[in-house]
C-alpha cells in the first residue's frame, strides 16, 4: 500500500520532470536570448530595474505564504491525530489586522515604485531623457502600413523601409502614426512599447548605449502579415551615422505621398526586404496623418471564395 503510494508520487513527479530539464539549457546562446535581461539603453534598464524590485517584493510575500499553506495542509491533515482541532475558531482580530496590513503596506510600497518607475520611462513625461546626451536630438518619423515599417528622417530628407539606423548615445525622438490599423513600436533591448495609431501621432523617446544590431517588431496584432512585421535596428557610431545618411541621400529610389500610397498597399514582407529612399519631404508624415484623418483607407482584400 505504501509502496503503491510512493510509486504513484514518483510517477506524478516524473510528469513535471520535463520542466526541470529546461533549467539545464544554460548555454550561452540560449541565455543571450532573454533580451529583457540585457538592456542596452536607460529606458530598458529602468524597466529591468523595476521588474527585479517588483518580483523581489512579491516573492517576499508569496513564498512564505505558500510555505505556510503547505505546512498547514500537511500538519493539520485528518490522519494526523496529534494536531489540534478547533472547528469553531474562525475569527481573530490580530490575524485580520495582519492579513490586511501586509497587502496594504506592500501595495503602498509598490505604488511608490510604480509612480517613480512610470516617470522614468513614460515618453509623455516631458522631462524624459532631457539633457541625457550631449549629442543633438535626432528626429525620426515612423509610419506603419499593412505590414511594413517606414522610417523617415525629416531633417535629413531620407527614409528607410523595414530598417532603422540610429547613432549611439543620442536621444532619438520618434513621432509615429499608422496608415492602417494599430501597431506597437517595440525594440526589446532599447525601450518599452508604445502604440502606433492611425490618424493620430504618438511619440517615443529613447537612447541606445551600445553599438550593435537589435530586433524591432510590432507587438500589436494588425492582420495577416503581422508575423513578418519586423525591422532591423542598427545602432552605429555618430560618424558612421553621418556617412550612412549621406549614402542614403544618393539612393535612386524616392518617396513622396503618391509613392507612399503604392508602398502602403497590403504587403507581407516575407523576405524581410529593406529599402532606402532619398528626396523625402519632411511633410510626408503630416500628409499621411492628414490623409487617414480625411478617410483614406488601404483596404484589406476579401479572401478568395472557399478560403477557411
Amino acid at each position: 500500500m505504501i509502496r503503491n503510494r510512493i510509486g504513484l508520487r514518483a510517477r506524478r513527479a516524473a510528469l513535471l520532470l520535463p520542466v526541470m530539464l529546461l533549467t539545464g539549457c544554460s548555454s550561452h546562446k540560449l541565455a543571450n536570448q532573454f533580451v529583457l535581461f540585457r538592456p542596452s539603453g536607460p529606458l530598458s534598464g529602468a524597466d529591468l530595474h523595476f521588474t527585479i524590485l517588483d518580483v523581489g517584493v512579491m516573492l517576499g510575500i508569496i513564498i512564505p505564504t505558500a510555505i505556510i499553506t503547505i505546512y498547514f495542509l500537511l500538519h493539520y491533515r485528518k490522519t494526523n491525530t496529534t494536531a489540534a482541532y478547533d472547528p469553531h475558531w474562525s475569527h481573530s482580530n490580530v490575524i485580520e489586522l495582519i492579513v490586511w496590513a501586509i497587502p496594504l503596506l506592500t501595495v503602498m510600497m509598490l505604488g511608490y515604485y510604480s509612480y517613480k518607475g512610470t516617470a522614468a520611462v513614460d515618453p509623455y513625461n516631458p522631462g524624459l531623457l532631457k539633457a541625457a546626451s550631449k549629442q543633438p536630438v535626432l528626429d525620426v518619423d515612423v509610419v506603419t502600413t499593412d505590414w511594413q515599417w517606414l522610417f523617415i528622417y525629416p531633417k535629413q530628407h531620407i527614409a528607410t523601409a523595414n530598417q532603422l539606423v540610429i547613432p549611439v548615445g543620442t536621444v532619438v525622438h520618434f513621432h509615429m502614426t499608422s496608415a492602417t490599423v494599430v501597431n506597437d513600436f517595440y525594440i526589446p533591448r532599447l525601450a518599452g512599447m508604445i502604440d502606433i495609431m492611425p490618424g493620430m501621432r504618438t511619440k517615443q523617446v529613447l537612447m541606445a548605449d551600445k553599438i550593435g544590431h537589435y530586433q524591432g517588431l510590432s507587438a500589436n496584432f494588425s492582420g495577416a502579415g503581422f508575423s513578418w512585421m519586423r525591422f532591423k535596428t542598427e545602432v552605429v557610431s555618430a560618424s558612421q551615422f553621418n556617412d550612412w545618411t549621406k549614402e542614403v541621400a544618393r539612393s535612386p529610389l524616392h518617396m513622396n505621398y503618391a509613392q507612399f500610397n503604392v508602398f502602403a498597399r497590403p504587403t507581407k514582407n516575407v523576405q524581410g526586404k529593406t529599402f532606402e529612399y532619398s528626396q523625402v519631404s519632411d511633410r510626408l508624415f503630416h500628409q499621411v496623418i492628414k490623409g487617414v484623418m480625411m478617410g483614406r483607407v488601404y483596404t484589406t482584400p476579401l479572401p478568395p471564395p472557399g478560403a477557411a
Partner: protein
Amino acid sequence: MVHVQGPWSPLLGRLSMGAIPDNPIITGAFIFAAIFGVLALAYVTYARKWVYLWREWLTTVDHKKIGVMYILIGLVMLFRGFIDALMMRTQQLLGDGLHSAGYLGATHGYLVPYHFDQVYSAHGTIMILFAATPILVGIMNIIVPLQIGARDMAFPYLNALGLWLTTVGAALIMLSLFLGDFSHAGWIGLTPLTELAYSPGVGTDYWMWSIQIASVGTTLGAANLIATIIKMRAPGMTWSRLPIFTWTALSTNIIALTSFPVLAVALGLLGADRYFGTHFFTAGMGGNLMLYSNLFWIWGHPEVYFVILPAFGMMSEIIPTFSEKALFGYITMVAASFAIAGVSWAVWLHHFFTMGAGPDVNTFFSIATMMVGIPTGVKVFNWAFTIYRGRSRFDTPMMWALGALFMLLLGGLTGMMLAMPPINYSVHNSVFVVAHFHTMLMVVVYGILGAVSYWFPKVFGFKLNERLGKRFFWYFTAGTVLVFIPMYASGFMGMTRRLDYLSNPHLFPFEVAEELGIGLYLVSVYYFVAQLFVSVRDRNKYPVGADAWGTGRTLEWITPSPVPFYNFAVTPRTHARDELVWRREQGLEHVSVKHYEDILMPKNTAVPLIIGALTLALGFGLVWRIWWLTDLSFAAIIVTVILRSFVKDTDYTVGGKEVAGIEKGLQARMKGAQASGLPSGGVGGLRPQESNS
C-alpha cells in the same frame, strides 16, 4: 446600407457557394461534427426519448436542469476551445524559424495566417464567453436557490430564456466554422482592425452578434440571480447567515448587471460602423478608435472579476468542508468580495498602458490595479487560516481548490508585475501576459472543476470516480505547468502574442515543452471522459445520502441526493451560519416530517426555446445581411414575447401526498436501493404534469 466587398443578393444576402470553406482541416471538423450529431440524433430516436427530451429538458424552467444544460454547453465549447489551442500550439511549433517547413499552402507551419488568426480569435471568444461564463452561470443557477432554501429562481421563464440565448450565441460560432469564416481580429476585436475596411468578411459579424446575443442572456440571468438572492431567502436566512458562495454570486452578478450593457454599447456602435457606415471607431472622419478600447475594457475588466469571484466562492465552500472547520473571517471574506467587485470598476486602463495616456493617468490606474491585490491577498490568508487547526482531507474537490489557490499565488505575482507600467511597457502583448491571464483563468477552471466534482453527487445522486478524478487532476496540472511556465520564460525573450510564424529559432525548446504540455492536457481529457463514463456506469453501486461528503455545512446538503424538482419538501428554517453544522451539533440532522403541504411550482414552457430559435435566425440574417430574414425573425420575436405576456396560467400545484411519495422513494434510494433510467423531473424524482406555452 454600407457598401461591402463581395457579392450580395436580396434573397441570400452575402451568402453564396463561396461561403463554404474548401479546407481539409475544416472538412475534417465537419465530418467529425456531422458523425457525432447524427449518432446523437439516432440514439435519441432509437431509445424513443424525444418526448422525454422535450418535456424534461427542452421546455423546462427548473433551475437545476437549466444549470446542467448551461454546464453541458460550456463543456462542449471548452472542448472546441481546447482543440483551437492544440492547433495554435502546433502551428507555433511547426512554424518556428526561417527554415521551418510549410504544409497545406502555408509558408511556415500548416495554417495560413488568416486561418491561424481565426483560430486564436475563436479560442479566446469561446473560452471566456462560451465555456467559462456558461459553466459558472450554470453552477450558480443550480446551487444558489438550494443554498438559500428556495424552490427555484425568482424568474424561471427568464432563466430558460437566458440559457437558450447563450446557446444561440454558441451555435453561431459553431456555424461560422462551416459557413463563412470567423473574426481574425482577436476576441477583443480592436478597432479599426474590425472595421469593414480591414475586416471585410462576415467573420467579425459572426463574432459581434454571437457575443451580443449571449450577453443579453447573461444580463437577464444576472438580474434574475440578484432578485433571487434578495427576495427568496428562506425564513431565518439573514444576510449574516448567507453561505459565502451565494455572497460571491451576488457580488459577481452585480458586476455583470452593470458591466454587460457597456459591452452592448461598444459592440452596438461597432455594428453601426459596419452596417450603417458611421464613423464611431474608424481612424478617419472623426472616429476615435481609442474609445472602443476604453468601452470594451470598461466591460472587459469587470468581466474577468465576474468569472473569478464565483471561483473564489467555490473555493470558500470546498476548503471549509474538507477541513471540517468554519471559514476563517467570514465577514472580511464578504467585504473583500465586494471590495474586489467595486475596485474592478476603476482599473480598465491597465489593458492599454501603452496607449500613451501619460505618466499621471497610468500611475493612477496602476495603483488602483494593485489595490485589487489587497482583498485578494486577504482571501488567500483567510483560506490558509481555515485549514489551520482543521482536519484536512484531500478528496478531488479539495485538490482542485488547493490547485486554484496556488495558481492564484502565481497569477497574482505576475499580475502585480503587469500592474506596474515600467514592467508593462516591456511585456505588453507578449506571451508573458498570455501566461499571466491563463494562470488567472486556471484559478477559474480549477474552481469550476472542483465545484463540479463537489456538487455532482448532490445533483445526480452518485459520486464521480475518485481514482480517475485524481488522475484527471494530476495530468491537467502537469499540462498547465508545462504549457505556461515556458511561456513566462519566452515572454522575457521578447516573444509577442498572436504570431503564426516565429522568426526566433531559439524559441524551439520552449515550443516543444508547450506542445508536450498540451499533450498532457489531451491525456487529462481522456481521464475526464473515462471518469464520467465509469461513474455513470457504476452509479447504482455507490448512491450517496443527503450529505454526500459527510462534512457538508450549508443548506443544500439537507436535500435528498439527487435533488427532487421542488428542492425542499418543507421550506427549511435557518438558525445559524453553516446551518447543517448547527443541526448536527443540536442532534437535529434527521428531521422527520409529519405533514407535507401542497407545493406551487412553475409550469414548463416552450417559449424560451422558440425565442431562441427565432434569435438564431435573426443572428444568422444579421451576419449575412439577409434583410428579409432579420426583419421577419425580429418581428416574430416581439410577437412571441407579447403573446406569452398574456398567458396567466404559469403555475401548477403538486399535492402534498405526491410530495410525500417522492420523498419516500428518494429516502429509500439513498439507503442503497436501485434507481433506474435517465434522470427526470428535477434531476431526480418524477414530475407528473405537462407543459404549456
